[in-house]
């Protein structure tokens, strides 16, 4: 994804998911396991603790396909996931990271 421009990103119909999660060992496994069991590739992942570190925010870049709605519902069901927000590929979070991947 490092070489993708903003337009190319949109052309591939990607989506950015923003998850608020509890911050402890295993939470990431729960989240990515939902994708890997469906052979649904996660193109990019970014995680940082927020505030006092009790919770983290996970950003996922995924291809937009017909399974995405079901994926979001499945992610929402995880006990350690507090909220899920869905953004379009134009979201800046990964685009601004690109300079670290050159």
């Amino acid at each position, binding site marked *: 994804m490092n070489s993708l421009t903003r337009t190319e990103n949109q052309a591939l119909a990607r989506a950015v998911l923003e998850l608020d999660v509890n911050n402890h060992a*295993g939470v990431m*496994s729960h989240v990515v*396991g939902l994708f890997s069991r469906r052979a649904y590739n996660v193109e990019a992942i970014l995680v940082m603790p927020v505030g006092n570190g009790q919770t983290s925010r996970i950003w996922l870049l995924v291809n937009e396909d017909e399974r995405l*709605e*079901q994926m979001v*519902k*499945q992610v*929402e069901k*995880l*006990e350690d996931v507090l909220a899920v927000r869905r953004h379009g590929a134009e979201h800046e979070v990964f685009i601004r990271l690109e300079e670290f991947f050159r």
Partner: protein
Amino acid sequence: MSREAPESLSGAQIVVRLLERQGIRTLAGIPGGAILPIYDALSASKLIHHVLARHEQGGGFMAQGMARATGRPAVCMASSGPGATNLLTAIADAKLDSIPLVAITGQVPRAMIGTDAFQEVDTYGLSIPITKHNFLVGSAEELLQVIPRAFQIAASGRPGPVLVDIPKDVQNQVVEVAEWPAPGGADPLPPPAADLISRAAEMINGAVRPILYLGGGVVHSGAAAAAVALAEKASLPTVMTLMALGAMPVDHQLSLGMLGMHGARCTNLALDECDLLIAVGARFDDRATGKVAGFCPQAQIVHIDIDPSELDKIKTAHVGIAGDVGAVLQRLLPAVDGARREAWLARVATLKAEHPLRTPGIDDPRTPYGLIRAVADCLDDEATITTDVGQHQMWVAQAYPLRRPRQWLTSGGLGTMGFGMPAAIGAALAEPQRTVVCFSGDGSILMNIQELVTAAEEGVNVKIVLMNNSSLGLVFQQQTLFYGERIYASKFKGMPDFVRVAEGFGVPAIDLDGVSDPRAALAAALSARGPMLIHAGIEMREQVLPMVPPGAANKDMIGG
């Protein structure tokens, strides 16, 4: 939280006390090195009866039997490593059928995790995809939140299994406990959206050929009576999934019995003609729908489910209502008009008359259907019926007169051979006043045969009806029908003497093949207390019919 005099307790003692406070009185498991502190604490419990399974999978299915029979979360235990891996199948089975289960596993001490220690396996990682949620406990103190939370998660919303992995040093860690948490129970759910209920009611009122499609969620929610009331008020012909059997008595005039791969032709044909499908606590499983594009092709869909992720998963609903199906049905009932639907009910009656479920041999107890009917004739609706997985399971699903929710315990989603006998033991432990009949096959019974000794040890009132066709019957049938009769690896060459096997385990047994009056022998066997194995030979070429070929639409059934 309740305050009591502070006590110094080990993690293991805390676990046992919390289980007692949850109301757990029976649990099943097998001890081993990494869970010995909990077993030591368990030995001091005056409230909990521990049932010693002979394989952890058996213990897991016993807990499932308790949970399925009562609807309350049940507990199984295993040690680390192989103990935990042996439990996984029973946990996965509970996940697919939405059964509330709390599995407690021992783990190597925290300092040894990740060192490939003796009997160490990543139980947490292994159980992520097959549990509703799981925990690796980091301190004895944490147990005070984790254990009640595990029960709360298992019972709330769509029920499911929760695993709690407890390192041995956490079990041994002593802490002061001054306050006890409240036992974990199901969270209350928000009421369903009123506007969606009115839209669903409008659709039902406006439908000409509606069908009510009940799934296991109706049983889990305790909503069987509400579902029958809705069907009766609005004159809705009703189909049930494998998991919902018993929700509406099979001989109710609106019942079309089980739908799908081995449903009656009239059932699948009625679905093919319906203009409205009201799915309640059902998930459009492929064995129920057949080829999805050909499932109820003319129908609009109202879908009611406690799990929002089930709505629109397989079929897009015209009205999707997320909520407890019991609560939704309760609100839907006053909103629907009483209707007689004479034309549609007449059409369904014609379909039933022209394409009924054919049960050849039903009057002959030496045939599959006849044996099942003969067993039913000896029992009333208070009996609980479990099955293993295979031809016998489908024959029983088709032919046993199930009339009571939670009367029928079967492995639906995962389809686990080896489920039936330990589940029956669990059901009998939970409800000792009932007769529990486990229909099994010669393939399935061998997958957890060791639990016969547990049945003998506990003296449970479990009757195993072993339908022996010397083969893996459904495999044999599929090879016959769809693989050019190339029968491979499905006929058993060696066959144990099951009567002697049972007797060797301490379970009395009879062979119906060798008696002159099988009905009288069955009646005597089923009325005695305690475990019993009833062996009956079945012709190898008997098939479960009708059948929707894999990948076909439900209306294109073969046979029957």
